[in-house]
C-alpha cells in the first residue's frame, strides 16, 4: 500500500474474524488496566495495531466513541510520539498508525521512556535548586530527600528498561 493513500483493506471484519478482533481488543484493555491506561486509549491503540492504519471515521465506527473523543485521544497519542498521522493523498483526511512495526513497539517505547526519564530528572534537578531558597522551611527537608530518592530510583529504572528490550530483540 502506498503510505499516503487510504487503507486498501476493508476495516469492517465479519463473523468469526470480528469475534477474534473483539477478543484482542478485550486483551488490550485488560493489559491497559494494569498500566493504569484508560480503556479508550487501549481500545484505539488496539485497533491501530490490528489494522495498521485507520482514519478517525474508521475508528469512530469501530469503537463507537464520539468524534471529539477520538480526535482528542489521537491528538494526545500523536503528541506523545506513540502514534503518527499522515495525510491521505488528494483528501483532507489523515491516517493514523502506531509508530514502529510490531516487534519494534517495545524498542520505541523503551527509547521514549529513557528520553522522558532523562527530561524528568533534569526538571527535578532544577526544582531541587529552586528549593534551596527555602532551606529550613517546613517541608523542605522531606521534599529534598524525596526528590533525591526519585532521581536515584529513575536511574535504576532506566537500567531495567534496556534489559527488557534486549530480551525481546534477542528472541
Amino acid at each position, binding site marked *: 500500500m502506498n503510505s499516503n493513500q487510504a487503507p486498501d*483493506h476493508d476495516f*469492517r*471484519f*465479519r*463473523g*468469526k*474474524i470480528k469475534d*477474534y*478482533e473483539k*477478543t*484482542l481488543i478485550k*486483551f488490550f484493555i*485488560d*493489559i491497559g*488496566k*494494569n*498500566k*493504569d*491506561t*484508560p480503556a479508550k*486509549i487501549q481500545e484505539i491503540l488496539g485497533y491501530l*495495531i*490490528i489494522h*495498521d492504519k485507520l482514519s478517525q471515521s474508521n475508528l469512530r465506527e469501530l469503537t463507537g466513541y464520539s468524534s471529539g473523543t477520538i480526535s482528542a485521544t489521537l491528538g494526545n*497519542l500523536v503528541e*506523545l510520539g*506513540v502514534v503518527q498521522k499522515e495525510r491521505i493523498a488528494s483528501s483532507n483526511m489523515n491516517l493514523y498508525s502506531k509508530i514502529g512495526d*510490531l*516487534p519494534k513497539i*517495545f524498542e520505541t517505547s523503551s527509547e*521514549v521512556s529513557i528520553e*522522558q*526519564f532523562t*527530561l*524528568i530528572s533534569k526538571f527535578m534537578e532544577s*526544582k531541587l535548586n529552586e*528549593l534551596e*531558597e*527555602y532551606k529550613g*522551611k*517546613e*517541608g*523542605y527537608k*522531606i*521534599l529534598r*530527600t*524525596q*526528590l533525591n*530518592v*526519585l532521581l*536515584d*530510583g*529513575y536511574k535504576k*529504572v532506566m537500567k*531495567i528498561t534496556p*534489559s*527488557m528490550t534486549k*530480551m*525481546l530483540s534477542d*528472541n
Partner: protein
Amino acid sequence: MEDEEDTYDDKVRKIEKEIVEHLIKSPIYSTRNEITTKILIYIMLRKEITQHLLKHLTGYSSGKISQELNNLVDSGMIIRKKIPGIRRKIYTFESVEQISTARIKNIIAAMLKWQDHLDKMKNEMETKRSKLETMNGYDNIMKVIDFYLPAIKIYEKFSESLEIK
C-alpha cells in the same frame, strides 16, 4: 505524624505542586489514569501520607481516594501502615524500583492470564484455516497473535529475572 492539616510552607508546597503537575503531563505518566498518578506522585514526594491529607492536596473525594489507594495497595505498588496511637492509616512506598517492578509484574501477570486464550484462538484459526483464511482480517488477527504469544513468554522470563534481583 500530624495528619489533620498540611504543615508545609506555602512556597515549598508550591514547588511540590509544580512537580506533581509536571509529572502528570510527562509521557511517562500521561497515558495513565490522572487520579491514580496524582495520588502515587504525592505518596512518593511525601514518603508517607494519610488519606485525609491526600484529599486536602488533590481535591478528590474521600471515596475516590480510598478506592485508588486500595487498588495501589493490592497491586503491590504502595504499602498501608497502621501507626499505634493514630486512628488514621498512613500510605508509603518501599522504593521507586519497587513501584516500577510491581507495575511490570502486574502487566506480565495480566498477559499470562491471556496466554491460554490466545493459544486457543491461534489453534482454532489454524484448524479452520481453509474456511477462515479467505475472510477479511484473517492475516491481521494472526499477525497480532503471532507477535504477542512469543512476547508473553519473553515477558515471563523477564518477570523471573526481576524476582532474582
